[in-house]
């Protein structure tokens, strides 16, 4: 979606974001195409009750209090305000969380369940004094309010950290208690001694009261079950996709490498892609010490991209190395591999053995070889960047070269088992 000037298109949270900056600088009067788009209709995450009024107010550019009054004024008109409020509550998306605290859920400023409980004696008193409520009616209203309290507490409420710890359990306990009392009164036939209905009502109240006490556990189990199912489905999907990609794309990449010749541009690209895809598909939990191996693989990849060579890295073992030693090994290996790529080309083997006693890296090529002693002093490559670097880190490097190839061996620490 482009930068649409039509405010009606700035629906719930979609596509409006990037357009805001462009709209702000333009003046609304110059041309209809530059009207400032409205902020999307979203409920904020810090709310009084449900965030509907605040969301609507922000969308329409009014004050939140004004919108609240509209809803209140509309309420008596056949319940229009209430219905509109509920409808908006159900269908307005919640804004994206801005931080980790917000991500946990809505933060409600008003303890609705508690307020409902407080409302109960007032309603009863007014109703009974004015004679609007019969005794049965009073019982029904109490039960209804208690049910509402419990439903809210179970389904909607999230305790604000600033409220006391007993808030949730306390509210539910009181509501359940009142419900049980209602059930008791109903059962004793205090109001309407017409048998069946009363007994049914009484048992329903009792059931709700019991449910209140066990519901949290059931809800928790249910949501755990749900998230577990989601995780399993995700994992299954991933495995299926991995298997599919493995059978199709990876195979094709292998064929390309095979047909294009090992050191051609196409083969290198295919190889780099294969690596990337493989890493993405099969990235499991990295074992300790895999860090060094992973860094050396990265080195191999970069060298492969820059030079027409194939670098094969084999890494075994695991151990934790000091950062300094790891850095020296990685840098020296890079230098050795680049050296091999530049002077020998073709296939380069890198073998890494990571052990607690000593870590060794072997870089081998199949070039014509060279004589270290014959390299002029000015050339820093091998002598400084490889041998010198390893020595400074407390390790050692040796170079073996013959007509059949060169092998550079890096060790850390210098002697097996003794760390500097």
């Amino acid at each position, binding site marked *: 979606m482009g930068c649409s000037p039509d405010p009606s298109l700035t629906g719930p949270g979609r596509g409006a974001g990037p357009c805001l900056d462009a709209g702000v600088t333009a003046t609304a009067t110059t041309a209809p195409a530059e009207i400032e788009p409205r902020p999307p209709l979203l409920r904020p995450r810090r709310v009084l009750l449900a965030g509907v009024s605040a969301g609507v107010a922000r969308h329409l550019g009014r004050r939140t209090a004004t919108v609240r009054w509209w809803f209140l004024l509309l309420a008596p008109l056949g319940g229009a305000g209430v219905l509109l409020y509920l409808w908006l509550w159900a269908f307005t998306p919640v804004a994206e969380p801005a931080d980790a605290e917000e991500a946990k859920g809505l933060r409600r400023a008003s303890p609705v369940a508690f307020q409902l409980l407080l409302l109960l004696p007032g309603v009863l008193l007014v109703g009974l004094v004015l004679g609007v409520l019969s005794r049965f009616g009073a019982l029904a209203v109490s039960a209804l309010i208690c049910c509402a309290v419990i439903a809210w507490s179970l389904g909607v409420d999230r305790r604000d950290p600033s409220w006391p710890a007993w808030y949730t359990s306390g509210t539910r306990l009181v509501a359940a208690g009142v419900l049980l009392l209602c059930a008791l009164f109903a059962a004793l036939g205090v109001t309407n001694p017409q048998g069946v209905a009363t007994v049914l009502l009484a048992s329903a109240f009792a059931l709700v009261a019991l449910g209140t006490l066990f519901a949290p556990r059931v809800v928790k189990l249910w949501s755990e079950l749900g998230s577990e199912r989601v995780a399993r489905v995700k994992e299954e999907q991933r*495995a299926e996709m*991995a*298997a599919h990609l*493995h*059978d199709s794309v*990876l*195979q*094709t990449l*292998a*064929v390309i*490498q*095979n*047909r294009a010749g*090992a050191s051609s541009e196409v083969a290198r690209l295919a*190889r780099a892609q294969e690596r990337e895809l*493989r890493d993405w598909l*099969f990235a499991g939990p990295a074992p300790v010490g895999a860090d060094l191996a992973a860094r050396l693989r990265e080195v191999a990849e970069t060298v492969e991209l820059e030079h027409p060579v194939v670098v*094969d890295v*084999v*890494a*075994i*073992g*695991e*151990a934790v190395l000091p950062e300094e030693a790891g850095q020296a090994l990685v840098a020296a290996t890079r230098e050795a591999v680049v050296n091999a790529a530049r002077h020998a080309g073709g*296939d*380069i*083997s890198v*073998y890494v*053995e*990571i*052990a*607690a*006693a000593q870590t060794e890296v*072997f870089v*081998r090529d199949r070039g014509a070889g060279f004589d270290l002693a014959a390299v002029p002093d000015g050339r820093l490559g091998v002598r400084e960047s490889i041998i010198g670097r390893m020595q400074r880190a407390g390790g050692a490097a040796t170079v073996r070269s013959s007509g*059949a190839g060169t*092998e550079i061996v890096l060790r850390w620490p210098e002697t097996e088992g003794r760390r500097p």
Partner: protein
Amino acid sequence: MTDAKLTVVIVDDHSIFRSGLRADLDDSLEVLGEAATVDEAVEAIERLQPDVVLLDVHLPGGKGGGGAEVLRTAQLGRTKALALSVSDSAEDVVGVIRAGARGYITKGSSGPQVSRAVATIAGGDAVFSPRLAGFVLDAFGAPAGEQAETDAELDRLSKREREVMRLIARGFAYKEVATELFISIKTVETHVSAVLRKLQLSSRHELTAWALERKLL
């Protein structure tokens, strides 16, 4: 070897790969047939009785066991198997090796490389790539310094076997390993075959665990 051409059956579910490999193989090999699924492979191996079967690790059909299932089901007779995998990750192949393959090579290998490997396998020796050697070293606890006391021990490598595996992992060819260790090529091949046997028979839990865990691959 004798003048007679080595006979080969290529098993892979990708026809492009099969025809590519067929074209790349050297003249000393004769391709008797191709197969694309587990069932076809079993049938082809039993009917054609090739010297070597080039077997993809991942195959459709059968009970879903891929290359390993082919080796377990078919009456191999004198046929030897060389596993082919799209990746150089040895976890991929340990199942096939344990099912009886004599070696493995990646699909990225060139025609001459595959041909050489086929000849080695047909001659009764094992084919180890650097990655497989690394895997073997890792699986048998070599970096931690574990070493077999006697040659008969299946769960650890002997000192010599370890040296041979390390050199292969470093990218040495058998001939170079032999020169490096002052032993004959034949001795190197003996060591490699011994390691292959350990790989197939050992009950080290890492081997089986890896094979099970990486079923996805």
